[in-house]
């Protein structure tokens, strides 16, 4: 599914208002708890994560708080490591992108947006479709298989993030791409946590 983009802007050029008014985000129909667009550094992830945890802690048991927090960390660290647009910080590359957290009538919704290349778009589509086609047992086998593969690689991430997101949310991964010109795309990713 491709969103029709009138602006053809990449994520970083959009204002929060523009991100919130995309069809992908409007469909979520929730109250905004967190909205950030910028350099997704570890410090930002930790800081916003603390805010999120303490907000959730007021009204939910630890199991729910930890599930949402875990999904938040995987989604935001994906941007930090894999966003196609990066900032340079003392010689270190940090991914740029956006994270939005919504309180919805039936739970919570986390959305991240970051730029990806055409190649990444193809890989992500394949990965998300595979995960969405699996039941709980298949997801567990897939996790073990990926873990064996990743044990031999030196990558920073484990390649297990999307599996973890799907497992903890218990819901399909919802995603979409929007052309931002120059064969680049804005990758919209949404994970829903149902409560009650």
């Amino acid at each position, binding site marked *: 599914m491709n969103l029709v983009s009138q602006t053809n802007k990449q994520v970083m050029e959009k204002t929060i208002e523009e991100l919130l008014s995309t069809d992908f985000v409007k469909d979520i129909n929730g109250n905004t708890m967190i909205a950030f667009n910028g350099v997704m550094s*570890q410090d930002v992830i930790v800081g916003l994560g603390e805010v999120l945890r303490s907000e959730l802690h007021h009204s939910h048991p630890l*199991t729910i708080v*930890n599930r949402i927090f875990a999904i938040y*960390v995987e989604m935001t*660290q994906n941007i930090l490591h894999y966003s196609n647009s990066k900032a340079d910080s003392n010689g270190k590359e940090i991914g740029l992108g956006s994270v939005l957290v919504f309180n919805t009538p039936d739970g919570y919704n986390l959305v991240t947006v970051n730029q990806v290349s055409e190649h990444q778009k193809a890989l992500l589509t394949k990965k998300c479709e595979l995960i969405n086609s699996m039941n709980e047992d298949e997801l567990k086998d897939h996790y073990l298989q990926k873990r064996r593969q990743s*044990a031999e690689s030196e990558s*920073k991430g*484990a390649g*297990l993030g999307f599996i973890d997101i799907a497992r903890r949310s218990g819901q399909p991964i919802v995603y979409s791409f929007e052309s931002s010109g120059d064969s680049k795309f804005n990758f919209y990713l949404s994970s829903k946590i149902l409560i009650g």
Partner: protein
Amino acid sequence: MENLNLEATKYTPEIKTDSGNAEIRIYGSSYPENANEFYRPVSEWIENFLDEGNHKLTVNFYIYYFNTSTSKSFLNILEILEKYSEQGKDINVNWYYTEDDEDSLDNGERLFMEIDVNYQLIPVDSI
């Protein structure tokens, strides 16, 4: 042998090794930017300790949250322990989990899948 003594941060656990008692304690939350890099000294310490002729080591994990890249590093540590265990060393791993979080046991259990090392999953009130 010199011990590791790392204080906890918001996103990395406290890590203390005790060569005298042949114990390691890893305590806290873990989602560093680069887990490989963060846990490398721990793997190295374990290998050095057991290569120096020590026959026994107990590793205690009290972790209330870890991200997927940390799980890869933990797996790496467990594989090292598995290797020494196969050589006949007395290796024990204790994974403490809290029943306050219904997923906590499952998260621990998943870590030990396909790992052949002596381990215990131990419930505690809170971590």
